[in-house]
């Protein structure tokens, strides 16, 4: 077990990277606490797998250092780093039985046969592979094969960390849930650092204590699921996490006053709607709004409500109300911008509602980042 530190990592897959786009990872600095359960969340192609492969040693970063408990391991091979990794698609050794597959990482490290047998039996039982331990791994279903891959990742007890690269992609939904709970349970028991890569926010939020959100080769936020939800550090986190995602409205700051640019009079907006918004509207935000210039306002649908009788609010026009099963979502337009909000079961939404944005949960963003927050 180890604390893993990544220092100013950059990685490019080409030989002489110049432009920012040449890099798959730019300037990643992060510390993974020993024994933590982390999820690495981000859309496809954002550099999650690259980052994971750099931690395990399959890739050597173009720049920067990887430290395990303060010791530089950047140039060490995966077996010297003593790390386990499970891949997206099942990898099994066709020539071996299930039992031999599970024992393989231990045998390669010269573990005593008696210990191997005990450990393999334990992992086999945990993954419910008991009745197929002595059959050839080649003939099994994708589900079982992926369980074997998982098993090979879990079988070593002394690893610095276990890395999972979207390990449940090929697994059946009901089994997926079960295996994820198993991994969670195993983490509670072993307290080994686990890093779980996924692009599925539900998977990330249910597995991890800490979620690391990546976008376009950099880490945009590290925090608990609650923090990511309540105070997104980047507009990307706002719309990637949560369903539906954060509302974003273009705004302008002038002398500490934040106004939403509603785009009134624009031919693109709902001309036939009952009410048209004219002019810009002042908005209260939770973070400091120093410095003049263009910015963005972000507020989650959960923190927007309909104004009461006589209460002032942002004038909007209702587009539609849809029911997702979990909530009812009202889609409205403020000028030419869409604002979604959650409405309670049975609550009526007028054709021309006025919206109140919770000032404690409404944030100002500059160039995508939360204004006034150190990165």
């Amino acid at each position: 077990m180890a604390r893993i530190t990544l220092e100013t990592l950059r990685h490019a897959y080409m030989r002489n990277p110049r432009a920012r786009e040449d890099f798959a990872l730019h300037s990643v600095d992060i510390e993974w606490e020993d024994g933590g359960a982390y999820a690495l969340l981000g859309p496809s192609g954002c550099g999650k797998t690259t980052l994971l492969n750099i931690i395990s040693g399959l890739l050597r970063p173009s720049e920067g250092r990887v430290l395990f408990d303060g010791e530089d391991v950047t140039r060490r091979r995966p077996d010297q780093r003593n790390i386990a990794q499970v891949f997206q698609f099942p990898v099994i050794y066709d020539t071996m039985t299930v039992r031999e597959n599970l024992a393989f990482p231990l045998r390669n490290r010269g573990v005593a046969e008696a210990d191997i047998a005990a450990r393999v039996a334990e992992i086999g039982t945990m993954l419910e592979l008991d009745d197929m331990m002595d059959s050839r791994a080649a003939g099994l279903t994708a589900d079982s094969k992926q369980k074997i891959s998982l098993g090979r990742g879990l079988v070593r007890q002394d690893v610095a960390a276990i890395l999972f690269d979207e390990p449940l992609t090929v697994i059946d939904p009901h089994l997926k849930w079960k295996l994820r709970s198993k991994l969670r349970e195993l983490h509670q028991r072993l307290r080994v650092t686990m890093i779980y890569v996924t692009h599925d926010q539900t998977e990330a939020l249910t597995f991890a204590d800490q979620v690391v959100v990546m976008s376009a080769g950099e880490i945009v936020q590290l925090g608990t699921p609650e923090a990511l939800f309540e105070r997104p550090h980047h507009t990307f986190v706002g719309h990637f996490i949560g369903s539906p995602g954060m509302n974003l409205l273009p705004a302008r700051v002038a002398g500490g006053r934040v106004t939403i640019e509603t785009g009134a009079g624009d031919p693109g907006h709902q001309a036939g709607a009952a009410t048209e918004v004219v002019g810009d509207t002042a908005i209260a935000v939770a973070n400091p709004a120093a410095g003049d210039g263009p910015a963005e306002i972000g507020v989650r649908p959960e923190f927007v409500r309909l104004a009461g009788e006589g209460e002032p609010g942002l004038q909007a026009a209702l587009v539609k109300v849809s029911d997702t099963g979990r909530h009812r979502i009202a889609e409205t337009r403020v000028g030419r911008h869409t604002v979604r909000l959650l409405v309670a079961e049975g609550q009526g939404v007028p054709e021309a509602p006025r919206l109140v944005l919770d000032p404690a949960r409404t944030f100002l963003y500059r160039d995508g980042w939360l204004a006034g927050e150190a990165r």
Partner: protein
Amino acid sequence: MRRTNQIGWLFVAPVLLLVAFNALIPLMTVVNYSVQESFGDNVFFWSGLQWFEQLLNEDRFHAALGRQLMFTGIILAIELPLGVAIALCMPKKGPFVPVCLVLMALPLLIPWNVVGAMWNILALPEIGLLGYGLNAAGIDFNFTQSPVDAWITIVAMDVWHWTSLVVLLAFAGLSAIPDAYYQAARIDGASRWSVFRHIELPKMKRVLTIAVLLRFMDSFMIYTEISVLTGGGPGNATTLLSIDLVKKALGQFDLGPAAAMSLVYFLITLLVSWLFYTLMTRGEQ
């Protein structure tokens, strides 16, 4: 009464005709010759299974079959491991991949009689680079007189000509292995040998089955190159089955015995191919 769809025959007819003229009719002609005696002038007499009995008891046939099995065994034992080894050494990606592939394909593109002629000239003790070079280096080498030297030359020629085929097949098999397998092996701490034994070899099994079958059949039927290179000599030292068959059919014009030998030759090729295939695909579902 069941009505049959007569128009269906029209659709099958082209293939039937093609197979008939391509395979069935020539084969039946051989079967026809194999049970008759001929003295020329298109006069034939029924001779039953006489030629088959004669062939199976003939020392000349046994010797040719023995030489044939030895030749095929030797070249399979060299070309398969060598081909796999070369494929493993080839770059997996980058600009050198196409260069290697073209270099590998070159021997396969040369007409077979030219291959024979090239090696004949190369190995000639008086003028050939190889033959003259060996003799100049003090090694007595003359493939036109020494049976051992003749065998070394034909084996070397076949290895040069056909190992590429095994390389290309093995390379295709290796290219199809996803990177995740190599990555998992590195994480699991597998040795280079384990990677070969447990990942590369099993993943190459299908293409290697094809390589074994192709190399077995082609080498078992080899004629052109050896005919040009040694003509079956010195003596009968390199007279393999096909060379012996041509001597019988065209040299001595013994149509009946040659036809019987063709059939036996064909059946042996078929049987051994089937055996290889069955053994190599055993245990697959």
